[in-house]
């Protein structure tokens, strides 16, 4: 793939991540009770864990927004969100296949779709960074936020 197309793909991924967080976060936060009722039949208490998930999704969207605006300047945000996508992909797929109740029903399909989406995002970000000659995993040194 040409370098220009790689840059476009990266921008597209960052845009998707931004929409996922900035639109999905407030929805999950504000409609936590409704969302919780899809997964749990008997709601006894305030769905605080769903609400907090919405807040963190918004935070993730903010990171993607900054990276989308200037991915060269905020390269470290592109790199760090790869880890987020990787752990989310693993957790969502584990939930779908092993932890949620069987047989497959809506919650399983939901977590499966989320897991595949996270996997796609993480893989695409890794691919783009490798093609652009950047490091994709940072473990505490060698990262320069102004690296181009």
């Amino acid at each position, binding site marked *: 793939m040409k370098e220009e197309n790689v840059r476009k793909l990266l921008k597209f991924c960052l845009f998707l991540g931004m929409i996922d967080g900035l639109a999905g976060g407030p929805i999950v936060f504000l409609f936590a009770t409704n969302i919780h009722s899809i997964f749990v039949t*008997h709601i006894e208490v*305030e769905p*605080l*864990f769903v609400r907090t998930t919405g*807040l963190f999704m918004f935070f993730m969207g903010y*990171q993607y927004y900054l990276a989308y605006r*200037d991915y060269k300047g905020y390269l470290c*945000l592109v790199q760090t969100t790869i880890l987020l996508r990787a752990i989310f992909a693993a957790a969502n797929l584990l*939930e779908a296949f092993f932890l949620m109740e069987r047989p497959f029903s809506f919650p399983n399909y939901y977590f499966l779709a989320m897991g595949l989406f996270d996997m796609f995002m993480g893989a695409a970000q890794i691919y783009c960074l490798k093609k652009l000659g950047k490091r994709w995993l940072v473990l505490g040194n060698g990262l320069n936020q102004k690296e181009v």
Partner: protein
Amino acid sequence: MTIMDKVMRVLFFAAFIVDVALGLICVFFAQEVQIILNVGREEEPAFIRVLGLFPIFVGYLYYLIFCDQRKYLVLIQVTVLERLSYPILLSAEIFYLLPGPFSLIHLVFSAMALITLFLALMQVYYLIQLNQKVILSG
């Protein structure tokens, strides 16, 4: 390295340890967490596990900051927003959303809100001292 740098380095390390520990507890002991906090009984507490992943990620960001806080200034600026928004949510939960009377979960949330607010304010103070923007707007 100034005294402020050293103090912040200790705080970032503490934040890294606490966040990762909190995240791992939520991921691997989700059943126990919902029992201890008395937040309902679900067969599979998926949202507690999913929520646990975020502190692990934030802990990773703090680890990077701890490794070189001057180089990863952008991560300090990004985490300020998260640290400031978290106490607001916790306060809303404590005072409006969680049912009364005051119980263990209220106490845990109050402590978390105060600690998070303290860290956020320290980060803001540190960034101001370094003549850096507190909130990035792109």
